[in-house]
């Protein structure tokens, strides 16, 4: 047993070789049932989440999850089943259920596992698994510290939704009837704090969090608590704005959603259904000329890294947008076949989607905007992926002469994603690394603000 395997067993996870055996047996059963092709994935995860509120432990949740998913193909007919029961009997029932379904689905010539030549053959260690040697008692202490830092920060912090610490380790193995069989372990840890501030103007709530595959890379508990407190206090006394057009600066933690809408629109399933405003726009200028958006699937220990996608297809670093021009789509094997293209290794999504940071930091962007709206929260989702029309609830700060003037709330911002992408004035270097999308703050030339 190597070191990683030893760590897994210690964490209460099965050895990878056990899961590989299970997948091999699932694929075998599918073949015996007459399937001409099959693919299956199995996962095991263990961990906990603790919450402390007002200085006392509030919840201790122990998680232990198993999942098995199988898809069988009879020629070009497909059926799928999934279960949490990974016993021999559970596997037999699931394979049977998937085969039963495939008797009723229609021939679809694009259906099937990924083509063999696209599968990963070399498996780089992406340093994804860093189990955290912390027990629930120690985690509770951390959660208490985190919350205490927020509660002590200012007397207007009057209430709390608590501090939380969670740690999870998981193992996932994927295999298909081309002979692909591989998997890897990964860990995910997070710490967060949410508090409530109150003054004559009313109550406001906000939060801050840190997440990483490595516990030592988590932000300091006191710092998380302080940021949660500062963010909450800064919202007190929020005003509305009159309806107007103005420049908009999306703070780094909300800017990721702009890229999320972009990825949805260039995803294969949106394109072949013609449910996207980005149809047939490769080689077209979509973003401002200074914008580069790329995928970095092989960053060590990063949250969105993966050596292969959910179909075993090798992942590759690539540009989605170069100098503002759309270079390609986000495809899995099925949607690629539908579009007459090659899979881009995105079954399951994009990997560390990155918008190249510019020169300015958050402060510099405020100065560059001069007068406008800094958006720090978005609510609701009236974003139409077919037309690109965009309208969302927002909260943030009104800025004049590059300085924050006062908090604003109960307003909406609206526009069209085509205009928003073309009119990206600058991307900040204040990159938020807490998720799969890596972006700094993004300054847009103008949107419509609706308020009083």
């Amino acid at each position, binding site marked *: 047993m190597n070191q990683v395997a030893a760590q897994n067993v210690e964490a209460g996870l099965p050895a990878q070789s056990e899961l590989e055996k299970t997948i091999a047996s699932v694929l075998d059963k599918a073949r015996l049932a007459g399937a001409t092709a099959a693919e299956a994935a199995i996962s095991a995860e263990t961990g906990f989440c603790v919450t402390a509120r007002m200085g006392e432990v509030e919840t201790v949740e122990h998680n232990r999850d198993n999942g098995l998913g199988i898809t069988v193909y009879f020629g070009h007919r497909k059926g799928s089943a999934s279960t949490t029961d990974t016993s021999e009997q559970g596997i037999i029932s699931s394979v049977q259920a998937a085969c039963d379904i495939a008797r009723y689905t229609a021939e679809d010539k694009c259906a099937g596992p990924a083509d063999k030549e696209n599968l990963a053959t070399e498996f780089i260690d992406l340093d994804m698994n860093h189990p955290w040697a912390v027990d629930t008692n120690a985690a509770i202490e951390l959660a208490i510290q985190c919350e205490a830092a927020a509660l002590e920060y200012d007397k207007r912090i009057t209430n709390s939704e608590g501090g939380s610490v969670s740690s999870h380790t998981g193992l996932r193995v994927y295999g298909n009837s081309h002979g692909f069989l591989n998997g890897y372990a990964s860990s995910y840890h997070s710490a967060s704090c949410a508090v409530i501030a109150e003054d004559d103007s009313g109550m406001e709530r906000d939060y801050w969090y840190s997440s990483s595959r490595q516990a030592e890379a988590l932000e300091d508990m006191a710092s998380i608590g302080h940021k949660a407190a500062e963010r909450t206090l800064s919202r007190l006394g929020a005003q509305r704005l009159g309806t107007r057009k103005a420049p908009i600066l999306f703070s780094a933690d909300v800017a990721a959603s702009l890229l999320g809408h972009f990825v949805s629109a260039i995803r294969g399933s949106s394109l072949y259904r013609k449910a996207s405003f980005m149809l047939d726009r490769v080689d077209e200028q979509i973003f401002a000329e200074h914008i580069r958006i790329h995928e970095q699937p092989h960053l060590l220990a990063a949250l969105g890294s993966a050596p292969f996608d959910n179909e075993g297809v090798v992942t590759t670093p690539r540009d989605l947008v170069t100098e503002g021009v759309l270079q390609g789509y986000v495809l899995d094997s099925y949607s690629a076949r539908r579009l007459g293209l090659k899979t881009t290794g995105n079954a399951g999504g994009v990997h560390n989607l990155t918008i190249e940071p510019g020169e300015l930091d958050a402060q510099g962007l405020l100065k560059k905007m001069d007068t406008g709206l800094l958006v720090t929260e978005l609510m609701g989702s009236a974003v139409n992926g077919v037309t690109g029309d965009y309208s969302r609830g927002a909260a943030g700060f009104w800025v004049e002469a590059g300085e924050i003037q006062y908090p604003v709330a109960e307003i909406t911002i609206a526009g069209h994603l085509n205009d928003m992408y073309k009119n990206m004035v600058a991307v900040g270097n204040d990159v938020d690394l807490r998720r799969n999308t890596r972006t700094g703050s993004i300054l847009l030339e103008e949107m*419509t603000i609706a308020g009083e």
Partner: protein
Amino acid sequence: MSNMLELAQNQLLVPAGLDENDLQKVLDQLMQNNVDAADLYFQLSRNESWSLEDGIVKDGRYNIDQGVGVRAICGEKTGFAYSDAIQFPALTQAANAARAIAHSGGNGKSQILVKGVGHDLYTPNDPLASMTADEKVSLLHAADAAARAADPRVKEVTVSLSASHDTILIAAADGTLAGDVRPLIRLNVNVIVEQNGKREQGGHGGGGRRGYEYFINQSAAEAFAQEAVRQALVNLDAVPAPAGSMDVVLGPGWPGVLLHEAVGHGLEGDFNRKGSSAFSGRIGEQVAAKGVTVVDNGTLADRRGSLNIDDEGTPTQETVLIEDGILKGYMQDKMNAGLMGVKSTGNGRRESYGYLPMPRMTNTYMQPGDKDPQEIIASIEKGLYAVNFGGGQVDITSGKFVFSASEAYLVENGKITAPVKGATLIGNGPDVMNRITMIGNDLELDTGVGTCGKEGQSVPVGVGQPTLRIDGITVGGTGGE
């Protein structure tokens, strides 16, 4: 109802060789620490979904999930563990992990389990078996054909059909022993229409706690398809929505998502116990305009949000939240009710055995008033008439909420004029509820499509309302005021 419990025992306990004595033993084990309350939640869930695209049924999925969740409560502290294996050793292991929340050395014992009685709101039959696979495929094709026949501008049609059969059993240290068998079905049609190179989408769906035959009896495939196409075509002609504060008329039924966001979440017991809601400590106060009565009712037959018992074994009920504008009560689960010195209202719900229960809505709606809906529209000089919505979201602490119109029209001089593009509406819950100036006589509940998310847990819910006039709410379009 004892029938439901029996069904649940046969499904969940008998195959594992467990009986009531075993459950009592595990509960006693939990109560040995200084634990105030404890429960076991057994579940077996089977789901299927079928989808049609490009005129063919391409995909079918089946899922089976079972397990048991074990919870121990000590004051405001909760310990929780679960296992996907329903067997005695796994139960005792989970119980040991959960009870570690409390100090050892107590000598509590659980109450003797007493069979509970709940409602009889839906038939416990397995909806997955309510039709043959061939019939399911035919139903999908019928919806596809109806959508394509409705208008030549229909270019893409996707149809999905799904069902779940959920069997649960709850045993609690307070003596609760109850079971429920919950069917749930859903049919959805989505279309893309195209005209002169311009594309738009529309969608419609429905369902409830029934068997699939409901869709046949209601000609749902055809009706949903035609409604989806109608919506998409309306949006082809949509002009930019106005921006700014204006008078708005909300249509009946699904626009009740307004109530779900503006007041529903803020009246859940956990937030009010902790004092984090904009409605905290305001029982007896005027929080909405006179004439506004809002209830949460888990006892409506066959409804998506209904339950015979909640996930703590408490029978669901009709809870008056706001009566004639006055805040009357909160929605409670056992833990928050206990800490606030009131009784559970049967609103303790959880996504599955792998999650902790908390106060959640069931079917939340406003009682009708006396106004003719036409009279309400005619009363608007310049404003918006919004009849269909996407989702919504609320910040329960500040009271700010949004909901997104997907079908809306300009109203000028009392007449409905041009359709407008989708737009977000934003307001402050208590403030907006006081700006309701007219209430229609046309209460409708939604067609059975609502899913509510809270702290990462999704549960099926219902909403409803009559036609409403709200004065001065912010509409987030791009057009002029």
